[in-house]
């Protein structure tokens, strides 16, 4: 079982619903965010191109944040989700410094927090909050180890990319382009 998220940049409108839904679902304090939206503009008027992306922790296969954690609070489940056990976290900040995507942050309560792919929802058979709320339905989530899953089919059918592949982290969030 390898969970992955696939996001269609051709449909994303940058509304940031994914950010608000994550906040209300996961009690993320205002001022912090587990996911965010970026805009890339290139070209010269009137030949302009725009790309909008919703980004978060990529739950990398080769996660530097899991490697560098001295207590093992930062760990990866069998399904590939990277989680932080708050009661084992000492707040040293190493994992925050190690993430090339700057996906982690120090929660006001002291431990390190980040996107969890809504593991608590996956247990109930629901999709992550951001995927469920996106009005353009541009976000997909599923098991890459299953060749019949929607995410596997999308990656086979469409051109896609990941963020900072040269960092060697093998991220599990893909962007259809």
């Amino acid at each position: 079982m390898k969970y992955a998220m696939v996001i269609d940049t051709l449909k994303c409108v940058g509304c940031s619903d994914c950010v608000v839904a994550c906040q209300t679902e996961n009690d993320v304090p205002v001022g912090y965010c587990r996911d965010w939206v970026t805009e890339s503009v290139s070209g010269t008027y009137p030949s302009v191109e725009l790309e909008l992306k919703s980004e978060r922790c990529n739950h990398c296969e080769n996660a530097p944040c899991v490697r560098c954690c001295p207590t093992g609070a930062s760990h990866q489940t069998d399904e590939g989700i990277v989680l932080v056990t708050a009661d084992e976290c000492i707040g040293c900040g190493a994992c925050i410094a190690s993430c090339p995507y700057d996906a982690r942050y120090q929660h006001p309560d002291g431990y390190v927090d980040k996107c969890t792919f809504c593991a608590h929802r996956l247990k109930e058979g629901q999709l992550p909050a951001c995927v469920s709320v996106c009005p353009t339905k541009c976000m997909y989530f599923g098991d890459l180890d299953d060749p019949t899953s929607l995410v596997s089919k999308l990656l086979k059918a469409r051109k896609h990319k990941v963020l900072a592949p040269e960092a060697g982290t093998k991220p599990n969030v893909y962007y259809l382009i």
Partner: protein
Amino acid sequence: MKLKKTYALTPTYCEVCFWKCAAWVHSDDQGNIQKIIGNDNDPHCNGRLCPRGTGGVGMYSDKDRLKKPLIRTTVDGTDTFKEASWEEALDLVAQKMQEIKDTHGPESMALLKHGSPGSHLEHLFKAYGSDTIGEPAYAQCRGPRETGFGLTYGSWVGSPEPTDIRDTKCLVLIGAHIGENMHNTQVQEMSDAIDNGASIITVDPRFSTAASKSQHWLAIKPSTDIALLLSWMHVIIQEDLYNKEYVKQYGLGFDALKDHVKKYTPEWAYGITTIKPAEIRKTARIMAAAAPSTIIHPGRHVTWYGDDSQRSRAIAILNGLLGSWGNRGGFFFKEKISVPKFPHPAYPHPKWGWHDIGENYPYAEMGITNEMIKASIPDENNKYPIKGWFVAGTNLVNTIPQKDIIEKAIESLDFMVVMDTMPMEITGYADVILPECTYLERYDGIRSAPNREPSIALRAPAVKPKYDSQPAWWISKQLGNRLGLADYFPYEDFEEVIAWQLKEMGTSLEEMKKIGVKNFKRKSGDLYLKKGQAYEFGTPSGKIEFYSEDLASKGFDPMPVYTPHDTPDSGFYRLNYGRSPMHTFSRTINNPNLSDLTDENKLWVNPKVARIEDLKNDQEVWLENQDGVISSFPIKVRITERIRWDSVYMYHGFGHNNKKLTRAHGKGASDTELITKIQIDPLMGGTGMRGNFVKILIDEPSKDIVL
């Protein structure tokens, strides 16, 4: 992870914007709202709310909310507000309303409203004897397109728009920025259209999000849209690409139209719009090839240059040439189910009302707010003097241009009461402020909106009203009781009204509390026209009027013509404004969840302009418009290739100057205060607001300039 379990699910429909998506409010066992999730059966949202709906929790939790009724008073010579009990406040409002009724007549008390609370007050006002009712959403927003489409097809576009985007093969957006305006169903269906490989053509001087998803982006020179529409008509007619059967069966005045557009060649349009003739032809052909599954989108906020009804009519005519009205992938025939009126005595007949105030505008079908404001200024020639205002759910001064006229009107009023959830700028002008509770804390009328299938939604309170706020239905009833109108409110709790209405409609309050949304079967016929089906349109002739005899008879152009509009002088840039997908105008800027996403607007400036004006990214600048009005607050610059060099762009709704809005105060600039020049639409009185030009000031303007 300390996650609270959902304890209760309460159905509601969102009030953060006008789309009214039905949702479920998840609350925990402490009675706190955890999150708001869309109702899967609702055709408005299909289970997915937009960011503002999801952020509705912030509307409830915002500590800056109005908490107690406030009455204007003078303490040590300074004007201030004192907290009052509901008894005191309501007694005062009723007393003043009665005074106005006795002295001038109930017609002189005006209601300026928006949204669900407005309907409760409308009932009160009609019972009281006043038809002087208006909402900015008409003359400041979609009014012209209702007139334009009404004249052509005999029916309004309405809300939600009956655009069959999910099945369309070609979507043409001319001045519509779907994706930045989060009109939920439209955004969802545009995404479906992209999945289906539909071609999208966007006409916009700015590289909008929709433009970035279009196969063709026509970077039009601002204010020249009618020229483009006319030349599209020219190409489609001249090249025989129009829908011949449809036009023959349903159209009237085609030959007149053909004659009219003969001279509007793409080459002519090129000189005006700066769009290349080849591009105009190519896009016209694409539109025609996809017909009748083509949508020339009517837009939403269409009050731009004063000839907006005619421009909307041009859009309607173009749709008619392609045969999209009443066809799959074009416009479907919407249907809504009527909600039975709770029995009450007949309303009295006022001597005059909104219709008379707008008498100069023959096609006005709702109150023209700016005319009502003018009628509030004492003038010996004023036949319809307005002496009091009740403002509910609209922040007038941030919505309607020409703030000086609004302020002058307010100063002349005998009495003004404002009902709102937040201390918006308009509350600062009131004599009495009534704190309304948010949509999450009250019952409201059953939502029945026109869709593909008739559908109703229930709004029930998920939590008790916070602080000392009260729902609008209670406020209306309390005022009604004090004004001797108790007969019009024969119930103790609005829940009784809803329960009765639902029973009449074949369901029940219990059922609606469980399902939230109920969809009914269509009764009025098919969604689409069948081939060759006889159909009577709501126009005087019963046909789609390409040529409007009605307009001609009243001295207006029977077919749209292009009139050039003012362009900015050297050193000035056209002030363009639009929506941010994360906010609903000025209403949500203070919402903690949403201001976390965007708490200020930025001035979009082309890199060429930035070089000329010597601007850097995130530099703070002030704006001065053509009438010398300077923005109260600075705005940061965003240098981007997405905007033309003759315009600047900013999100509408920022630049709040009420200090009580702690998160919104002073953030960004207000576009409304810079809109001092308006062009009035002669057909229905809409206020065209895109004819204002600004110059960029780098240094903070001197404080002693009188605005």
